[in-house]
């Protein structure tokens, strides 16, 4: 072996040089988002299943619901096709789904709150809601006072959770948090919790399918749902708001409402 190690031989240098060129070439490719959208020709919606009747899968496995139909109107206006991505709710409410380029907007029965408005941009309100109490039929629990010493279930990251936590000390109940709505509702049926607090729209839909449960009261929280977007996406927000305005004026909104809730907006609940 020769005295001095010649590792910088010509072949080695040539190979390294080639690698540098190839490496910098590939590393420089940036996926150019199609004019601010995450996917060409599509309007990608983040949502959290299942939240019947706002978003859920029907018998054929297709995602359908009130929110889906509303966003379809937006997609039609923009000349794009809606694609739905099911993701954990906290990614939606924290805005991380937009920051990571997962979707263009989120429609998930999401209430407009100051907290959420810090990190995402909301459209104009498109649905009025309030919180409601789901209990086992015949339990006799008709208000929060009756829940003293009991467990109340809520869904992770919802305004119902906030409402429950705001009131738990006053009325003396414990709050148990569930990942999603179906598990929460099942926990009422198993008796693991005495009651569940969630949006009235979804709870009324549930008791139709499971008559051993009932909604005994509503809490007028004056909530409104909004469609979420990236904080700086003014362009999309304007488009969405335009579509919402037109839908309400043209009665298309009422049509969609009646399709999923069985009555026109403003008619009294059962």
């Amino acid at each position: 072996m020769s005295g001095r190690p010649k590792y910088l031989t010509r072949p080695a240098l040539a190979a390294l040089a080639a690698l540098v060129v190839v490496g910098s070439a590939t590393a420089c490719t940036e996926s150019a988002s199609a004019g601010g959208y995450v996917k060409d020709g599509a309007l990608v919606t983040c949502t959290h299943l299942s939240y019947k009747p706002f978003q859920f899968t029907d018998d054929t496995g297709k995602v359908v619901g009130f929110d889906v139909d509303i966003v379809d109107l937006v997609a039609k206006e923009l000349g794009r096709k809606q694609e739905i991505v099911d993701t954990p709710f906290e990614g939606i409410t924290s805005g991380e789904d937009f920051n990571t380029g997962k979707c263009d907007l989120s429609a998930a029965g999401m209430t407009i709150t100051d907290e959420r408005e810090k990190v995402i941009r909301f459209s104009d309100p498109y649905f009025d809601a309030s919180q409601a109490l789901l209990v086992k039929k015949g339990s006799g629990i008709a208000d929060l006072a009756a829940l003293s010493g009991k467990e109340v279930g809520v869904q992770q990251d919802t305004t119902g959770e906030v409402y429950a936590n705001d009131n738990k000390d006053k009325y003396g109940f414990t709050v148990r948090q569930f990942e999603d709505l179906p598990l929460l509702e099942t926990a009422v049926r198993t008796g693991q919790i005495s009651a569940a607090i969630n949006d009235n729209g979804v709870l009324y839909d549930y008791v139709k399918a499971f008559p051993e449960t009932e909604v005994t009261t509503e809490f007028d929280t004056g909530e409104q749902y909004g469609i979420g977007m990236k904080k700086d996406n003014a362009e999309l927000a304007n488009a969405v708001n335009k579509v919402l305005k037109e839908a309400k004026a043209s009665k298309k909104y009422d049509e969609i409402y009646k399709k999923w809730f069985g009555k026109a907006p403003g008619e009294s609940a059962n």
Partner: protein
Amino acid sequence: MAMSKRRRAQMFRYLQYGILLLALVLLIVFANWGQIKRSFFNLDTAAAMFPDVIVVALLNTVIYTVLGFAFGLVLGLILALMKLSSVGPYRWLATIYIEFFRGVPALLVFIAFGFGVPLAFQVRFDIYSTVMLALGLVGAAYMAETIRAGIQAVPKGQVEAARSLGMSQGRAMITIVIPQAFRIILPPLTNELILLTKDSSLIYILGLIGTEYELTKYGRETLSRSPSLTPILIVGLCYLIITLPLGYLSRYLERRTGGRKVPSPEASGLEVSA
């Protein structure tokens, strides 16, 4: 250019170093460090997580893991003995159990226990019982095979010696074989403990009260309120606080038992294990 084999090998080695160095350089140059810092290293968020992340989340993770491990170990031992039994139905039951609980995701087992069983059988468990049962059922399926191999690895000479001293089969099993078996399988059991620690992250699905949160749930809760992924990093580090020492312990135990792996070659006579 004719090169000796040695030169060629040496060049190839240097080339690989070159590639690694290049990859590192590209990573450093092209990573968006501002974004990474904002996404993972938000100090305010991290500071706000203490002490709850330790006294509530970490503590709960440890409690759940220990409960599941204890129950799983006892059940696993029973299953291992069933599998070694001369009674046919015992062997079949044990095999069915092990194949089933090793074959389905632990998350499904949790859902079944947290919601399916109460719905079907009109029973209710508190959270700690549910976790102990669910984690334990899954853990037992994995540990049963390990324990069985450990029992079979104990030199047959031990049983023969015990019997010749007048001990019954059962007495020999309990006082002679099983203790030795456990010494042998301590490393893989420690590994199982690490796996259970990570599986404890799945119990969020059962529905938790704030004081019952384990690390992953705590991390996700904090994540939903913060603008960065720092909570995930902190919680991950907490898991490592548990699992890294366990891994180290496992390797240490493996060295101490003379590196004897399960199953070990049969030894003869009245050999007493080291």
